[in-house]
């Protein structure tokens, strides 16, 4: 029994999905080892097979997926609870996915946490009941004992007032609290291995930082082996002992964190790290352009913008609550400038963007827009009908490249729609213009007759951009336009936007939760918190010398893609004064 014995050893794992066009190999000959007390990060972009690999270990691959060959050896004697001298090795790949043998492993020896805590927790049972259930499934304890253990677990995952919050329902928890509860549930039976499948992807950066340090601390206490799946190189640098890079189902590179980050061998790893590092500084292209063409006159002047939502109380007799989604926001955008709006989920940044576009009727304030002829009008008070002209100059790029393109229209119809309804072009001229627009965003003209489902996320986002620039706008509001994309595509799309800015003389309002993207793309940044702008200024200044405590805590939580910086920064948590 030496430290060299892994807890789990995956050997030549192959998992296939049966599709209409024959078997699709999602995991192709993957081998790795999980050591007790160590963290292995499985990194890859979407579709690389990293989640399927993790699910194969527990035999919970969604049908029609099936493990075709390979071994998954679980050394039960190496888990903390079962530690003994005698070897007790089990091949999980050989077990029937529905057998009681594999069920006894799940949760007890190997626990898993998922990306979306809300969908992994039952909404109709209290948190306490669900964790208690997990304990009682595997161990023969009384209800009272299980409850006591649950409270202890909740304390361990740093949930405040555990003896009270145990009786709450998942919807009463915040996103971060839910993920903590999921971790508590995963830890219920002291598993030897924790598989975390993108556990922080759905969370804000400040919450993410807390969850990561929690997992690290628990790992140190319990000596668990952790298999951490992520697409975020920053997170990898923060927590990994070892890194395995996956692409198209294959393991392309495998090694310890420092050597992967500082001396990557495989081209794909180099590209991945390159695009991450590229995003960590201002785009040289933007700086060069600004030196030549400094931002001009004020295009858009937002003053005291307010948007209040009324929340139905659900009762006929009680008045609903008010939610100030955007509260007294003042902003200016100059021509040729990129303004970033950064904030966490629920900060009102998307609502702000939609208010400026007048997707929503606004509750107060002014949006003064100066058009090409120097005429200034207040969009806030214009009726819907008179907004047509302004909406030709102000366009929007949406976050979700899947939901924002009508699946029932061809690409030509999608891009041509604004030109058609505004009576700009029709017939042959429209077709030519669409082909030209496709060329501008780097898509072939043959894309015209296809439907959106034929394109990948990055290509779809390009279609969305082509639609936005079709009317030769002056301002583009990009709402999380790169958030749904893989990191390698992110910089490509940002570069495309910068290129279009030069060609078409555009100004951007770029809404994002991702500081790195803002830093790359934006000249100025406004930090939003709970509907207000708490800090505004030139991007570099805000990023290097944040003034407001909220900005400071936000920046301190951003994981850096440099493993040597691990633990060098002090994380602060912003708590609003009551």
């Amino acid at each position: 029994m030496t430290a060299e014995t892994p807890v789990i050893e995956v050997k030549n794992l192959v998992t296939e999905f049966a599709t209409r066009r024959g078997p699709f190999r999602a995991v192709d000959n993957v081998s790795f080892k999980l050591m007790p007390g160590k963290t292995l990060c499985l990194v890859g972009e979407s579709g690389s097979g990293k989640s399927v690999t993790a699910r194969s270990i527990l035999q919970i691959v969604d049908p029609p997926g099936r493990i075709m060959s390979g071994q998954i050896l679980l050394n039960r004697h190496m888990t903390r609870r079962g530690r003994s001298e005698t070897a007790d090795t089990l091949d999980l790949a050989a077990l029937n996915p529905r057998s009681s043998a594999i069920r006894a492993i799940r949760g007890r020896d190997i626990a898993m946490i998922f990306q979306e805590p809300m969908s992994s927790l039952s909404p109709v049972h209290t948190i306490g009941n669900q964790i208690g259930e997990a304990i009682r499934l595997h161990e023969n304890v009384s209800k009272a004992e299980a409850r006591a253990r649950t409270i202890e677990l909740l304390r361990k995952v740093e949930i405040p007032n555990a003896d009270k919050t145990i009786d709450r329902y998942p919807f009463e928890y915040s996103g971060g609290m839910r993920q903590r509860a999921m971790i508590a549930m995963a830890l219920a039976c002291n598993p030897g291995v924790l598989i975390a499948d993108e556990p922080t992807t759905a969370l804000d950066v400040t919450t993410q930082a807390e969850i990561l340090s929690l997992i690290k601390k628990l790992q140190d206490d319990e000596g668990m082996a952790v298999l951490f799946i992520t697409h975020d190189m920053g997170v990898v640098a923060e927590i990994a002992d070892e890194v395995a890079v996956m692409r198209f189902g294959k393991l392309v590179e495998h090694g310890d964190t420092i050597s992967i980050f500082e001396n990557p061998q495989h081209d794909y790893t180099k590209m991945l790290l390159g695009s991450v590092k590229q995003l960590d500084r201002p785009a040289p292209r933007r700086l060069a352009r600004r030196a030549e063409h400094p931002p001009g006159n004020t295009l858009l002047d937002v003053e005291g913008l307010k948007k209040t939502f009324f929340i139905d109380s659900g009762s006929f007799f009680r008045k609903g609550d008010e939610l100030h989604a955007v509260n007294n926001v003042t902003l200016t955008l100059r021509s040729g400038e990129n303004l970033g709006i950064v904030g966490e989920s629920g900060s009102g940044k998307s609502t702000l963007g939609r208010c400026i576009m007048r997707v929503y009727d606004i509750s107060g304030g002014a949006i003064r827009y100066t058009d090409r002829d120097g005429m200034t009008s207040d969009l806030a008070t214009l009726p819907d009908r008179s907004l047509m002209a302004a909406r030709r100059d102000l366009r929007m790029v949406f976050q979700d490249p899947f939901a924002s393109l009508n699946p029932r229209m061809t690409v030509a119809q999608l891009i041509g729609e604004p030109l058609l309804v505004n009576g700009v072009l029709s017939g042959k001229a429209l077709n030519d213009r669409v082909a030209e627009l496709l060329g501008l965003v780097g898509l072939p003209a043959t894309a015209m007759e296809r439907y959106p489902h034929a394109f990948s996320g990055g290509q779809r986002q390009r279609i969305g951009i082509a639609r936005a620039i079709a009317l030769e706008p002056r301002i583009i509001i990009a709402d999380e336009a790169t958030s749904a994309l893989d990191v390698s595509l992110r910089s490509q799309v940002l570069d495309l936007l910068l290129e279009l800015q030069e060609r078409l003389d555009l100004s951007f309002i770029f809404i994002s939760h991702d500081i790195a993207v803002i830093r790359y793309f934006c000249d100025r940044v406004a930090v939003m918190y709970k509907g207000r702008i708490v800090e505004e200024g030139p991007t570099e200044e805000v990023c290097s010398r944040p003034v407001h405590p909220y900005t400071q805590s936000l920046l301190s939580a951003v994981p850096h893609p440099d493993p040597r910086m691990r633990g060098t920064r002090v994380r602060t948590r912003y708590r609003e004064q009551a």
Partner: protein
Amino acid sequence: MSSIASTTGNAADQASQWTLMWWAFRRHRLAVLGLMIVGLLYFIAAFVELLAPYDPDLSNARAVNHPPQALHFIKKEKDGGWSFQPYVIGMTQKRDPITLATTFTPDPTKTVDVQFFGKGEPTKLWGIFPVERRLIAPKVLGERFYLIGADRLGRDMLSRVLYGTRISMSIGLLGVLMSLVLDIFLGGLSGSYGGWIDATVQRIVEFKLAMPTIPIWLGLSAALPQDWPPTWRYFAITIILSLIGWTELARVVRGRFLALRTEDFVIAARLDGCSQMRVIFRHMLPSMVSHIIASVSLAIPMMIIAETSLSFLGLGLLPPTISWGVLLKEAQNVRTIAEAPWLFSPGVAVCLAVLALNFLGDGLRDAADPYAQEGR
């Protein structure tokens, strides 16, 4: 694994929603069977004059409650040879001198030769085009055969059931189409404007749902004047049925509108400068059409059943109009069950139609949103 979309040519890339829907539908075997049966039934409804061997009102005093005759294909000659000649074996009628009950016994010496695409009594297709050829007709004009028997006036049940198909299937379709107009208008109004319009429409729907269906049917149909010509009555019954049945679909339409209103692509269309009408008709409705078709195919059987029930009770269509319900009215008493069970054949037709439409509707509903399954 949907992210692995290639830029190379692929049939699915240029497939419209209808193609994708068809691909999904095809995998549903029962639904495809349902589609074939429904298609056949509507074909019969459209071309019944060419299919039914006789005029449905042609009575024959010598064939009262005539039992069904099996169709034979190979005719054996007396000299031992044989030939392909469809025929039925004739029956002789005997009347019991005491009870006066009539019995039919097969008589192998009497045969009626049958011809496919032979000539029958002249009639008019859709009342316009004169036709003589029938899918199946006696070889000698004037001879009679009863493949599924005859009714109490000696009328051919097969012809009557086939003619009934026209009325019963069309009343379902017409009724649903009528309510569909109402549904899309009210549901669309409700879903796309919201606010007090939505509240008002929804209260009307709820009020309508709170009213008991059967008494209203009965009341409204009983109020129809008995001396109206059959066509008027047919349309009046259709309107009554659609007035009763519209609410379900209105809610489906409203729900879809509400869900679609906040979709990114609908907001994008608004920002593109589309008018409200264009947003609704160009961007929202196409996403709903498949759902609407699925709901419609599930609503038609309800209408068919409703018509059948009303007519069975004698409150719907009345003779001389022929519908399955009217035909079943003939089979209302115990004597029929004992003596002429073939009078229930319209019931078999109703079951077949309703089942087929339900299978079809289920399949359509599952295939209705080809994009919903992409994540799987």
